[in-house]
């Protein structure tokens, strides 16, 4: 039974990336892109295999054949340096299997949608390649049994996400937005990386099963760990003050916006917190910060969504209200509620994103709700203009971040100048070569 589950898990994780490799191989051998239908067939097979394997794992977990399979499934060592060991371990439990199936089904659905939607688009093959990478990334994140594998998946999601935002790279704006999202991810991912190493130091292992030991950590150490996890979750899930990249992420084609920022990717940060919940649980200060950030983000986003006249930007912020709320729920300790909320919310948004271009059609059919001042404005009319302005400018978050990072950029520019100057200096050895 365990062997079957092992195979199923391996297929769930690897099938999409293997299909991507296959597309790459075809491209290299034929010296041109495979046709659209070939690409869809190959990557589609990988994604469907991943869904089916996920169903097998689900069946095994529920005990459909023999005793229920739950817990760590070992795949040997990934890396061993002295006594430092990175284990290849996946984990089967309620949360992991739910998220795995949920994301693989939605990814397959978006792949089906995009077959016609992206037809004749120059980046068609690229889109499917990224979709495959993303699928493997989400499966790793969902099923990883330890932080190292989780981090690998996390990075795959981040890379795919940045490339999807910059999908239309012949225009400047998508590329700029993509770079901003990527930079935000890099910054907050540093939190996860440091947390992984620190976990290893504090707990002796980065396995999620070892996290039970977090309860006995000194509160300072627990809080440090929890804050690091919280930081990476905030970046990935666009919580304040990192919310600026989310509306910019709407530069990609509609199906990728739906999958990433409506459904799967935006919720990844929350999923991380659910996974490392024992650490979070141990630190009241970190949880307080989390609740504050989540609620602030939710309020911020619901103010912004009121002023947004564009379909995708409004949806992005509508999504953010719930993501903030779920973050608060997790940090309060209502993890079961948060998991259900997360999945239901992703379901709701996916459809809304995919139907975003239908806005005009819908308005013709059912009309629209009239402009209506919010409760706050009705109680305190003087707040209308400041609130509107703040929401319209989105608190100028991006600009503030740019200011905060301007010393880093200035230092980089100085280094660049020094470098150029050094290169320009005559180097006799170069001329003699």
């Amino acid at each position, binding site marked *: 039974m365990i062997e079957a589950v092992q195979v199923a898990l391996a297929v769930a994780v690897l099938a999409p990336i293997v299909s991507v490799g296959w597309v790459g191989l075809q491209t290299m051998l034929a010296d041109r892109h495979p046709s659209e239908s070939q690409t869809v067939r190959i990557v589609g097979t990988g994604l469907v295999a991943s869904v089916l394997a996920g169903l097998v794992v689900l069946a095994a977990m529920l005990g459909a054949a023999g005793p229920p399979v739950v817990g760590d499934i070992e795949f040997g060592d990934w890396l061993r340096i002295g006594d430092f060991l990175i284990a290849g371990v996946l984990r089967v439990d309620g949360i992991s299997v739910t998220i795995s199936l949920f994301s693989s089904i939605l990814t397959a659905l978006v792949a089906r949608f995009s077959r016609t939607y992206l037809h004749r688009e120059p980046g068609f093959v690229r889109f499917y390649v990224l979709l495959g990478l993303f699928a493997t990334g989400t499966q790793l994140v969902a099923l990883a049994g330890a932080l190292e594998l989780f981090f690998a998946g996390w990075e795959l999601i981040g890379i795919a996400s940045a490339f999807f935002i910059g999908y239309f790279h012949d225009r400047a704006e998508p590329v700029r937005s993509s770079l901003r999202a990527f930079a935000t991810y890099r910054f907050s991912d540093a939190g996860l990386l440091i947390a992984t190493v620190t976990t290893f130091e504090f707990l002796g292992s980065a396995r999620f099963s070892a996290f039970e030991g977090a309860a006995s950590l000194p509160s300072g150490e627990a809080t440090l760990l929890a804050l690091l996890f919280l930081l990476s979750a905030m970046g990935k899930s666009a919580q304040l003050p990192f919310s600026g990249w989310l509306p910019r992420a709407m530069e990609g084609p509609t199906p990728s916006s739906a999958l990433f920022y409506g459904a799967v990717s935006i919720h990844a940060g929350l999923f991380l917190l659910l996974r490392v919940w024992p650490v979070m649980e141990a630190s009241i200060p970190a949880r307080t910060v989390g609740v504050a950030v989540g609620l602030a983000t939710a309020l911020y986003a619901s103010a912004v969504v009121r002023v947004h006249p564009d379909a995708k930007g409004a949806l992005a912020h509508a999504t953010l209200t719930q993501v903030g709320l779920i973050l608060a729920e997790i940090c309060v300790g209502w993890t079961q509620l948060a998991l259900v909320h997360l999945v239901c919310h992703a379901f709701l948004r996916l459809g809304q994103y995919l139907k975003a271009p239908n806005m005009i059609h819908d308005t013709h059919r059912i009309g629209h709700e009239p402009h209506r001042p919010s409760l706050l404005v009705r109680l305190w009319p003087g707040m209308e203009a400041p609130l509107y302005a*703040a929401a319209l400018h989105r608190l100028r978050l991006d600009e503030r971040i740019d200011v905060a990072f301007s010393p880093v950029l200035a230092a980089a520019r100085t280094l660049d100048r020094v470098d150029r100057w050094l290169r320009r200096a005559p180097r006799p050895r170069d001329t003699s070569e």
Partner: protein
Amino acid sequence: MSHGDETVHSSDPVLRALDRARGVLPDQGPIGVFIHHNTLHAYQHLSFHDGVQAGARALGARPYLSLDEFRAAWRRGRIADDDVRHEVSAFLSSRRDDVVVPGLSRGTLWHAMMVTPMDTADAAGLEFDIREGVAPQREDQPLWAACLARVATAPRRTTALAGPSPRRHRDVLVVLGGDDPDMVVHPELIRLGAGYLDMGQARAELPERQRGFLMSVCALYDRGGRAPRLCRGVGDDMRDVLGAQRSARDVIAHCVEALGVDAATLDDFLFDTALALPGWTGMFARLERHPEDHPHGPPVSLADFVAVRLLLERRAVEHVASHLGAPSAWTALRTSMPTPQSRPAILDAALLWGAARAAELAPSTVRALSDAAVQSLWQACDECTDIARRQIFVEAYERSYRASILDALAARRKLSSDYGDDRPVAQFIFCIDEREESIRRALEEQHPRFMTYGAAGFFGVAIDYQGLYDLEPAAHCPVVVTPSHEVHEQPLFTDLGWHAMRLRLRDRWHSLERRSAAASRTLGGGAGLSFLLGPVSAARTLVHVLAPRELHLLGTRIRARLAPRPTTRLSTIRPEAQPTQGGRKPVGFSLEESVDRIVATLTNIGLTRNLAPAIVVLGHGSTSVNNPHESAHDCGACGGRRGGANARLFADMANRPDVREAVRRRGIDIPADTWFVGALHDTASDEVRYYDLEALPPSQTAAFEVAFAALETARRDSALERCRRFDHAPLTLTPEQALQHVEVRSASLAQPRPEYGHCTNAICIVGRRELTRGLHLDRRAFLVSYDPTTDRDDKILERILAAVGPVGAGISLEYYFSSVDNEVFGCGTKLPHNVTGLIGVMNGHQSDLRTGLPLQMVEIHEPMRLLIVVDASPEALLTVASRQAEVAELVGNAWVQLVSVHPVTGDTALFERGAFVPYEPRPTLLPVVERSAEWHLRTRDHVPPALVRAALPITTVGPGHYTGHLTTSRMLA
């Protein structure tokens, strides 16, 4: 039309510049009603080439396809080489034989420069190609060496590789390495402008927006708006404007002064500033002129928008300039543009090489060329500009196609057009739309006594129509006409109770949908609805993506079962006695008015005798989902709406005994056993919906059933013909599968191409259908029925051309521009489109408002001017043009190509440079196929004209072609 005349009334330089900009800015209204128009309508008073070149210059767009695209068309034979040579000669006229260098005439040089990339500006690419041995220069190494050697000592070609000259501060600042002020100003303007114009998408509206854009923005900044960092200081400027209540004009003048723009450059500077964000600026200009386009919106003014823009821009420019240490005054800044690089010698050598090849010069001759000869070559090359060559190419491109069509028409004309004089079995009146050509051909192939006609899709009944569930009436007629009647759809008396109940339920349901859509974006509502609707919504999305057609059919079936639409009638006839209520338009037509319209339309299309027992009148519309441009597929002759109501109304009028009686007195005998049926043809799903079949007299059922069965077959054939253009539909589909395929397209969320719309339109044929019937025109021809034999004083021709000319030209030119430059004139690919404020689409999260047609609608289009072929003598056409100014402008300035085919002699003449020039068709043997599917299912590409035997008269092809498709099938509900 309200814009276009460039006569400027203002003496104020600021207002004058804005007026000038107003003429050029995109004139597209809110996207909910999409009306095709000439994108460069403002330049229509110039000749086509002058107009497109001037317009493209102003907007920074491409006026024609690129040379590379034309060359590709030349290589694959789409443009005949003879045509290129002919057009070069025509362009150069007597100068074509000038000797440029010994052995090389100007005409030969131009031809070479057109078809080969000898004057490339890409030095690095050329060097690479030569190094890799793939450049054409490898074919003649000695010659290439000679060219390099000669160029090394020759006078150099002086044309520098200069970019366009700077128009605004940012052009210089960016080149100098500063931040781009537009990157700060545009996002700010887009958010403010979108919030201001929003027609109901956002929940909160811009505070105090009734005060106008300038004042409300200033007030917003005054009460808590925080300026972007690069625009520091703009808050104070705005407070100042607010305090002094300055007018937009004064603000503009003040900012322009602060930006150091002197009086000499003011006009151009403001013009270019207004055109820097053309979509949004254009929407402000459009709504200022047409407030009726957004009935409940705030006051809109172009000057306000430009004023806000300049307030922001001024500060941004100042900050960037001072950061760079550059002057911020335009007079000083524009001269600090760095000088462009000089031209690498290899480019000159390539040019010389191309000329030497064209003249077949030996390497020794090249080496021996005098400096004067080289100079003269450079000069000749400079004259052969990129634009001039593309202008010649487009003429050749059109010439090649025109010849194939005119020759085919002449060949068809030689065959019989005698379809006998028996009473037709059924007649079908369609819109002139070129998308209906295939279904008309499919009908005609079925029976020689099936007749089809083409009339502008509002069928002569211009109405403000209010459907059963419409909130207010909307005009169903060409945009140039203002209806003087309203027509309402009303439930039958027996259905009144059910109607009231259904209306209540419907309102409640919609209000629920609306409120849940709004609530799902709020904090609490979003949470509640996630739990409540999340899983349901996911299941629905899953089914919608996997089985769109089935879901659509299921929904339709459930609605028809549980809440069927009440039976309705139109308020066609207004009792004479009924007075119209103060100021409102009369509801319904009087008897006299109805008779006028029936007589006019039947006369226009030449259907004045021999009426069939069943006559189906088909309006058209298009159904698609997830498509902000849905309205662009609807009927242009109905003002971007669906023509079903007009068809229904026309049929209803024509069926009334009192109307028929009066029509008979005017000379058109509608037999007692003739019945008109109105219908709507959906050009996306190829569905045909019939109206008022309950009123069909039992004696007419058999006749109608024949027509119905014919349409059932024809819409499948037509779907199949459309499917050949869609890569996802195999060419081997059966007609039934093809119909299902297009139904899926129409219902699918994931389909950016529900149909190709007017894509590939190229021809407009005005004349008797008998003369073109049996000719496969590949869905590229508007077909307008007109019978010159009954038109004694050219009045009918005038009526037709006055309506069809501008509508056809508008569609053709919109497609022309959107395909030659899809990024500037069109709106680019649909995939990142983001519906904004219910008025248009942006790319991604914030961009300029995108106007024009998306890439997915024009990708297989061949950009050409519409070829209008009229079954009338040149004299008749000149008479009409003398009476119709707009037609005269379009034809005289060559925005369309006009061809006269003489009704009696068949002589063909093309209108060129102010006069009709005879055209002698080349004798052509057209391919003959039995059915059109045999012809067009061979390829997905455009197909040239062919003869379809099944649609030709029996006398032409002998008996035995009758295909016997007339099995009656079960009626659809």
